[in-house]
């Protein structure tokens, strides 16, 4: 019987091994990553170019500076984007650019004179989010946390394509908040097979239960065009392929960007025009479970902050040091904000609007 079992086991367990292989790198193209919405600005566009495939992780991206970037509507009205840091272009915060029913495209002129346009897309309103909710989830101590879900009601009128993103907030100090974007994993759906029905239990993210205080999840629901959805779906398939006989081989991911009068030129990325809706859920972690972490406790109002750069939480009594001391001292007294908050990546002094506690904004 051992032989028999081995035989079947082999059929079912194929082998996947990481390997080293030589790749000939040839292409050099611009990459546009940006979107405008009917929500609040500022709107952001990044311009970069392809690089060595094995060094293309965020942080090694070859950003492209000094381009002239604007977004225009169908009537020729344009709003300029300004370069904030290398390759990152933004509108001013107060600009309200896009409205439902109008079409928009990006118009980029690089320093070398290369013009890049996107095919215009019409801004389609996003249906409202019905509900964002969480469920306490404890399978084992290490996975104790909360699963955050979203429900929405798909309108029956026509095809809708969705993308969901989240931002999470939890206290950094009494005056600053961590602002953490959700997973990079793309959360997408189409109503092709569910038109007019509820879309239930979209698993937005997981909130970890490592402290006893509030945790706010703000969910954003974007409406996508059919093309944008198809593009993102292909991105998702490509980065999660298993190389099996059921997987389509990887292909060029064609977005909606092009070089006028040059059909052979390839511009990667996508410029999306989206309607957006948001809804948040507040998790009061005091009300759940038994905290397994001894240092977890409600955030004290005692002014105290960690020195720069601070890598860990700073909700300790002032006479303690931060975990990474001496390079990361826990400093007593009022945190020097807003600079401290702004200085730290992922930390903000702006309280999220649904935050329940009294907050002491910096002046």
């Amino acid at each position, binding site marked *: 019987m051992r*032989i*028999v079992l081995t*035989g*079947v*086991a*082999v*059929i*079912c*367990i*194929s*082998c*996947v*091994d990481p*390997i080293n*292989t030589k*790749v*000939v*790198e*040839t*292409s*050099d193209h611009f*990459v546009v*990553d940006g979107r405008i919405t009917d929500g609040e600005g500022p709107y952001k566009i990044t311009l*970069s170019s*392809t*690089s060595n*495939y*094995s*060094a*293309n*992780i*965020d942080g090694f*991206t070859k950003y492209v500076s000094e381009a002239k970037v604007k977004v225009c509507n169908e009537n020729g009205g344009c709003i300029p984007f300004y370069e904030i840091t290398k390759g990152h272009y933004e509108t001013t915060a107060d600009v309200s650019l896009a409205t439902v029913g109008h079409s928009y495209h990006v118009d980029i002129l690089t320093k070398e004179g290369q013009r890049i346009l996107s095919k215009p897309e019409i801004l389609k309103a996003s249906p409202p989010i019905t509900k964002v909710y969480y469920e306490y989830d404890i399978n084992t101590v290490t996975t104790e946390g909360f699963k955050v879900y979203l429900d929405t009601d798909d309108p029956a009128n026509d095809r809708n394509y969705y993308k969901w993103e989240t931002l999470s907030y939890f206290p950094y100090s009494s005056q600053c908040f961590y602002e953490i974007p959700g997973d*990079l994993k793309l959360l997408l759906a189409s109503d092709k*097979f*569910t038109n007019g029905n*509820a879309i*239930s*239990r979209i698993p937005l993210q997981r909130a970890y239960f490592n402290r006893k205080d509030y945790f706010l999840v703000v969910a954003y629901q974007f409406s996508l065009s059919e*093309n944008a959805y198809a*593009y993102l*779906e292909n*991105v998702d398939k*490509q*980065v*999660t*392929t*298993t*190389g*099996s*006989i*059921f*997987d*389509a*081989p*990887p*292909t*060029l991911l*064609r977005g909606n960007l092009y070089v006028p009068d040059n059909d*052979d030129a390839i511009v990667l990325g996508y410029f999306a025009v989206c309607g957006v809706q948001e809804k948040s859920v507040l998790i009061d972690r005091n009300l759940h479970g038994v905290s397994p972490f001894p240092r977890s406790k409600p955030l004290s109002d005692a002014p105290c902050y960690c020195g720069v750069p601070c890598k860990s939480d700073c909700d300790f009594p002032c006479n303690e040091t931060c975990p990474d001391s001496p390079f990361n001292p826990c400093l007593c007294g009022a945190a020097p904000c807003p600079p401290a908050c702004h200085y730290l990546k992922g930390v903000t002094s702006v309280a999220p609007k649904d935050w329940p506690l009294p907050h002491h904004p910096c002046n």
Partner: protein
Amino acid sequence: MFPCNMCNTNVKLRAKSQTARNAFLRLSSIFLLICHTSFGQPATPQNKILIRGKVEDGGNGETIVGANVLVSGVGIGTTTNASGEYFLRLSRGRNTLTISFVGYQILNVVFDAQRDTTLLNELTPATMLQEIVVTGELDHVQSFQIGQNILNISALQKIPPLLGEPDIVRGLLLMPGVSTVGEGATGFNVRGGAVDQNLILLDDAPVFNTSHLFGFITAFSSTAVSSAELYKGGLPINYGGRVASVLDVKLRQGNKRNISGRFGVGILATNLTIEGPILSPRTTFLVSGRVSYSNWLLNAIQNPRLKESKASFYDGTVKVTHDFNKNHKLSFTSYTSHDHFKFPGDTTYGWSTQNFSLKALSTLRSNVFLTTTLVSSNYKYIVSGNQPTNEFDFSAGIGFRSAKIDATWAVSPNIKLEFGAGGDRYSVALGQLDPVGASNINGIKGNKEYANVTFGYVGTQFDWSDHFTVRGGMRLLSYQLVGPGKINEYTSGQPRSEDTFTGTASYSSDQTIQRYARWEPRVSMRYKVNEKSAFKLALDQTAQFIHVISNTSAVSPVDLWKLSDPYLKPQKGRQVSIGYFRSVHQQNYELSLEAYYKHVDNVVDYKDGGHLLLNDRLEADLLQGIARSYGVEAMLEKKQGKITGWLSYTLSRTERRIKSSFPEEQINSGKFYPASYDKPHVFSATASYQVSSRVSWGFNFVLYSGRPITYPTAGYTYQQISIANFEQRNNARTPAYHRLDLSLQVNSKSIPTRKWKGTWVFSLYNVYARKNPYSIFFRSDYFTVAQPYRLSVIGMVVPSVSYTISF
């Protein structure tokens, strides 16, 4: 009565008086010539007589279709028709016929006839003699056909099997010109053709899915099969419908003499075949079935991932034949196949086939033979999603009905006419979605497509001289896509897309949506230099109206089939092939060399990132272009002796070009690129060593070039996701594939009083456990740079054992 001599003489004794060719033939020790009637007709004015013969299996009386019958020293010959009969016009007096068929010993029949004569020739299965095993293919020098592989079903049992199941497709993969994308892939590729370009006929009914367990096992058991002939080129005029090949599989008709059977137990499945006469030898039956017990095994394994998996299949055939009289015969075949497969997770797959065929064979006159065939094929599959709140069943399938009449008329000893006509009806379900339970999924009523194909053909074979034979013909087809149906419309002169979609036209059931007419000229010729060598040449053209719509690198049983419509043009294949065939060393060895060039118009491909399932604007994601394939195939076969087997080598290329004036409708900038099954070098060595009358070893080694895959040419980040940029399709290759398999076959002792015989087969697949790559893929999982991985479908040695009792 008339004079008739029975001659049972070793041909070696006759070698000096007969032609030189006879000296090289070994006469089988058993043959039978029965002369039991005369036609009562006067001999022809040319002093010729008519020989009507029938070729049967000497063991069980089954008809042998497609056997070669040659008149020694004259250079004329023929093959047996669907009734196992042949007709020859010969000179009065002494004649010698050489009758051969793969898997049987060669039979020499020497007879002296003065009047029209009927012969019954019985061939002895080669396996009944230990020292002579005719393997592989029939005598290519004598056969007229080019581009043909005939699989010897008895030799198949000696090829080391995977999981204990002798398998027809695995046998074909050892022949030149036949390859596969990789282990686990459904189907096979012939001379650079896609998997859907093969027409697979099981007793005349097309089989749309040939696989169990996705691609590991062929969907019909070899135990019920009498012959499997693969036509790679020079397609006979009575075949059509696909542009790459026809695999014509015939089931056995059942033992005419007594009830017999066979019961086999392997590690994956068990099979049972029972056959015999019903009341009289004029009616026979054959029932054969196979069922897997892999589900039970998966449950028994202490691995939670496997416990959640399910894999099971069964298949079965029933064949009943009845001889009304000498001239009229009827046969009925039913074939069923079913699979159920579940991966750990949320999806289950099920697919099934139900085919019927009814065939009437009539000999109208001594030289006119008619076959009437009715077939019905049904293939359907269901993919069930079990994810909470989104439970669904997705189903699709094909219905095929066909009626046709084929006639052959031997106008004179050197001229044979073939003609026929028929009609096919296709109904293709493009996919329907049904919610299950309290699911959020809306049902989608599936689109259906209907088409009628009518066809007619006429062809002739002319034996110009003893050396030169030519065959030519024309096949005409009319294809009509008919309503009810809907066709999307787009702005003309622009690429089909969401943006250029203008609306949908509806057609009622009496309307023709699209019509295509095609003609298929075919010519082939053979020049026989002498009895040992021959040159052959063929040009043929074929059209294909049904296509698999799949953008994965391997076709699977749950891929969509689609009919040609106003956008999806029929595929057209044209091939020229030449061959040189030579037998050496008393026909113990045979060398075949063939070269071909094939051009296919309108091969189906897909836009980068196209979506195919339940896509109501599917044509906007499909592309069509051309494919070209060319290659040289060599095969050296040793047919007799303790060691038999063959070496096969194919050097070939297959490329595609998808060109358009719109960049998004091009692949690789409109340049030729290798097809995903392009394997320039394919080598195989297959041998069987008969140690004793009871013990034989099987050996099998294959070496293939890696298959084309797509490597990134750069990387970039989008929304902080690391993305590899794949710009050139199929710009790299996997490493080479090689594998060694071994098997040992042990037969039970032959005891005259015992009515059964047992056979053990022990085998090792992938002996040195090479992790042959199916694919190299790049995965970033969002968070890291795209890292290359190698996927090996079978990365270990796979042992198996099976036991078979024949009674």
